[in-house]
């Protein structure tokens, strides 16, 4: 039974909720929506999912210090190699290591090519044209306003080198972060003589990205729950972003105060101390040696092929 006191409008079904979407105009999610959905999901998955790091694979068995040092050597080698064939071999090598580390070839390739290389590809594409990189035209693209346009061999090879090099570099970094638990990564950084204070700040920044993200999510959910309409890219949308960024800073600052007290209460006086790190094992030395040998071979191959 419906009581007579209930106002008429409350009993009307909401027009905007018409299931076929015929009455309420459907709106595309705006950038705030997307950013927060991305920020929420993607960020949590890429930064905080450690399931890949706990699998029993090749790199997971290596020490973080060895991986950091070896990775740095290989990154440098990739930056110094100029022959596209050598770079392709290096890239395939990272792929092989990913598979050996049980990351799944498809997942790994997606993860690497999702972020920057696609963007890099788009950026580099115009550089293949003779407008940007003069040289021998191999693919003529006709004449535009009296100008002979075409893809030059120099342009194409330079674009290929860059795309493969970016992919290889990112693969190396992704290999490291996917197979290493964050806490081990920190231990590795500490062992490589990165200043302790920086490591402490870095670890706490990582920790509080998670905490603050929950705050952002709350603010956004609260806003979305209230505002039925109008989350589009309007003035109010911008005001909301600015206000939530401002409120977030207020929260962040209050949190830093609390954390400071919690640290002080347990004897912190600006000096960072940590548990002693285990000694380097023979395995770790082998990992670094392999990285060095691969780098030397790559650079040697680059010389010979040039």
């Amino acid at each position: 039974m419906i009581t007579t006191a209930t106002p008429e409008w409350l009993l009307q079904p909401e027009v905007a909720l018409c299931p076929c979407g015929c009455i309420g105009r459907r709106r595309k999610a705006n950038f705030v929506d997307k950013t927060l959905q991305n920020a929420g999901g993607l960020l949590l998955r890429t930064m905080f999912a450690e399931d890949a790091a706990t699998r029993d694979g090749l790199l997971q068995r290596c020490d973080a210090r060895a991986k950091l040092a070896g990775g740095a050597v290989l990154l440098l080698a990739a930056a110094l190699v100029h022959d596209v064939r050598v770079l392709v071999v290096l890239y395939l090598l990272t792929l092989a290591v990913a598979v050996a580390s049980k990351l799944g070839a498809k997942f790994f390739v997606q993860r690497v090519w999702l972020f920057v290389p696609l963007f890099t590809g788009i950026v580099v594409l115009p550089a293949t044209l003779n407008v940007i990189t003069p040289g021998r035209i191999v693919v003529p693209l006709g004449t535009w306003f009296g100008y002979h346009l075409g893809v030059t061999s120099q342009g194409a090879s330079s674009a290929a080198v860059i795309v493969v090099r970016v992919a290889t570099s990112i693969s190396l970094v992704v290999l490291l972060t996917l197979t290493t638990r964050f806490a081990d990564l920190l231990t590795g950084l500490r062992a490589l003589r990165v200043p302790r204070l920086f490591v402490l700040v870095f670890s706490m920044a990582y920790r509080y990205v998670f905490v603050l993200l929950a705050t952002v999510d709350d603010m956004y959910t609260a806003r979305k729950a209230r505002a039925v309409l109008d989350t589009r890219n309007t003035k109010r949308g911008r005001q909301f972003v600015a206000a939530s960024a401002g409120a977030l800073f207020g929260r962040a600052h209050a949190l830093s105060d609390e954390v400071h007290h919690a640290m002080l209460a347990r004897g912190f006086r600006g000096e960072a101390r940590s548990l002693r790190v285990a000694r380097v094992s023979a395995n770790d030395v082998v990992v670094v040696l392999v990285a060095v040998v691969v780098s030397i071979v790559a650079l040697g191959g680059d010389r010979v092929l040039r």
Partner: protein
Amino acid sequence: MHIPDGYLSPATCATFGGAMVPVWATAGRKVKRVVRSRYVPLVAIGAAYSFLVMMFNVPIPDGTTAHAVGAVLIACLLGPWAAVVAVSVALFIQALFFGDGGVLAYGANAFNMAFVMPFVGYGVYRLASRRLSLTSPRRALAAGMGAYVGLNAAALCAAIEFGVQPDLFRSANGTPLYAPFHLSQTVPTMLFAHLTVAGAVEAVLTFGVIAYLQRANVPILRINHRGVAETDAELTRAPLGWRWALIGIATMVVLTPLGLLAPGRAFGEDRARDLNAGKYGLRVVPAGLARYNGFWEHTVLRSYGFGAGSHPAVAYLLSAVVGIVAVSALVLGVYGLSRTLSRRNARELA
């Protein structure tokens, strides 16, 4: 603006990484002195905040996205040195977990976004907000203006960094070994994107946050503005002429990079001819145009001269060092000037 690995030569990366070491050391010392043991949580959570601000992506028409860096915002709230550390850590997280910005290129990215940007932006903000009360609407505008200028200064640095690559590092048959775009292409492209969309995003965000805090949380603004009067009523008014002069200077700072459009060939050729500055009443452009025109042509000729590969590394390192010194001098100059002025200001008020 995050330069990935592979765009810059290892020599460039090493140069900028080396340049950042003393900056980081100084930043660590300065911030620690101000807030002592509070330094760690404050800067760590500042970094987490900065990281989240960078997640706000805005699509721009060419298919890529731009996002605010928040460096000037953090500089306004916590001071420029704290911004150096906070943004550096945020960039480090992005490089490691998202492949956004390279690991080898970390030094260069940090130089642009964690050093040039907060200091240039903060300098402009200080100049433009002199003698303004803490809750004055114009202070929020000054912050937005600082953010706009700071972001474009950072973009300009990034454009120069990868714009010099094809001239300095190319193989015998002329194939560029790293970033293929020439300065005359990178500078206008980067600045176009940042002068229009990204700069506006950064400015709106910074303005909005400061304006919000002025309404909702003034004590937060106090962290970095100790002696500033809270309302206009508590303030002795400054003569108007000064402020107009400062706004003029800031406008010039914004417009100066336009001079770089001049030496362009592909993108810039028509524009340089079209750029009838008088038509827009921009008296400042011709001076910058003439100066930079000559400057860049000079550089270009030099590197073409070296083209065959006699001493490219030496020439490169030299120009890199000159570039760093020049930009650092500019950055510290703007910051120092604002410091001196505000100090004198404080003395006058006292």
